[in-house]
């Protein structure tokens, strides 16, 4: 569950005030809104990458507002993937487990499992440079899921992809959701993308978040 209550935060001249919303456990929620309205800022605040002035963030029934990102248990996929270019695909996927000092065998097994789920087994020894946009997003998704987070935050993961690749990744996200049941907050500009994946739709407008029906007019 993701619960944001009366969140106030400012980034330079930009400010968000009294933002509140809730995403139930195991829900797949799309967050939409105009460019520059603060969607990414909210997502970053939930992930712990932005300081908040006041308000609270509760994840999986835990108050995490003052906790660092590492302790929030969130898998984060930024818009450009932000893969670690000094590492191979395999090292990217296993990164979160290596940080947690898991045994190499355990890491290798989990990486293999993720690679099969995401269809990137043939890419494990490749370096990041030279991967296509779709391949990079698959690796970014796998990296975020490796440590089995309770929450997944996706910042426009499909925006830079062509339609065919996008369709493939939408199917993949649906499969991930089905197999892992992870609570997901997915920022998107595409209503079609939102409707094909989510069971909850939030819209950010004038600094406030409101829920809209998934079917019908937005």
């Amino acid at each position, binding site marked *: 569950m993701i619960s944001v209550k009366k969140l106030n935060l400012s980034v330079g001249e930009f400010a968000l005030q009294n933002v509140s919303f809730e995403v139930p456990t195991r829900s797949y929620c799309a967050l939409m809104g105009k460019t520059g309205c603060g969607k990414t800022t909210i997502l970053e605040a939930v*992930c712990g990458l932005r300081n908040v002035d006041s308000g609270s963030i509760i994840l999986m029934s835990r108050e995490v507002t003052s906790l660092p990102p*590492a302790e929030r248990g969130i898998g984060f996929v930024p818009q450009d993937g932000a893969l670690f270019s000094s*590492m191979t695909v395999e090292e990217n996927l296993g990164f979160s487990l290596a*940080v947690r000092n898991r045994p190499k065998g355990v890491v290798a097994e989990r990486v293999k499992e993720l690679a099969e789920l995401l269809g990137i087994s043939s890419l494990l020894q490749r370096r990041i440079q030279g991967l296509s946009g779709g391949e990079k997003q698959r690796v970014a998704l796998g990296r975020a899921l490796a440590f089995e987070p309770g929450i997944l935050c996706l910042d426009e993961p499909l925006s830079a992809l062509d339609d065919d690749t996008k369709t493939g990744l939408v199917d993949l996200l649906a499969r991930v959701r089905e197999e892992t049941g992870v609570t997901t907050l997915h920022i998107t500009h595409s209503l079609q993308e939102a409707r094909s994946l989510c069971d909850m739709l939030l819209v950010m407008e004038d600094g406030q978040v409101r829920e809209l029906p998934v079917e019908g007019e937005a």
Partner: protein
Amino acid sequence: MSQPDVTSRRSDAAKAGSPGGSISRWLGNSGFLVALILVGSFYVIMLLAMLAADLTWTAPGDFIKALSSEEIQYSIRLSLMSCTVAAILSVWVAVPIGYLMSRFNFFGKGFVDAILDIPIVLPPLVVGLSLLVLFSTTAGVWVEEQFKAVFGTGITYQIPSVVLAQFMVACAFAVRTMRTTFDQISVRQEDVALTLGCSRFQAFWRVTLPEARNGLITALTLAWARSLGEFGPILVFSGATRMKTEVLPTTVHLELTTGDLEAAVAVSLLMVVCAVGVLYAIRHFGSDRAMGRVI
């Protein structure tokens, strides 16, 4: 519509599509490249001419005589050692400073930024003089006494002063390089590393520093090369004592002052060979191919 009007309009259209005619087009394309090559060639030819002049001024015998000299052998050893230590220290200090200046805003950042550039803009002799004055103060004398108690040697006019003088200038260049390097590395990667379970240090060590590898090699190269060429600060702070604080630039100075131009030029060319050899080695062994990285 009459034929002459159409012809006239086509001619006007052709002129409108290619402003200034063919000469202007040539100047804008090929002429531009020729100008770039001429300006660049002038500088490259000057460099080659200087090296050629040095080569023709010396004979193989001058090299052998220089290399056989005990003082010059000492000077070569001290230069290689001190430059290496100064370069490593420079990078060691430049990485945290460059990272701080790149990633954080703090009170007085602009002032610190200006201070860090001082060794670059100050005349080298002034850097050496300032070091000499610093170690003449009460605090400086105390530091030197503690250093001597630990390491068995003082600083001023001793070997450590050579390393310190080289470091004070070389580090400024290394800091600039590392700051630019970290500026070019996306903060996003560190953000993701934090969400994946890293502390700030772990994100820096596991993600940012490997990304900065090429910048580190550049900073090390620059610091080493700068250290090799330092003369002014060393002359003032370390002196020019043979078999003690004499480095290769000091040797050139001493040979010139005694009128032995051939020896001075021979040693200068030795410096060129040393520098090219070490810099090539750093770049080669630090390259992606050397590290077995295949994309």
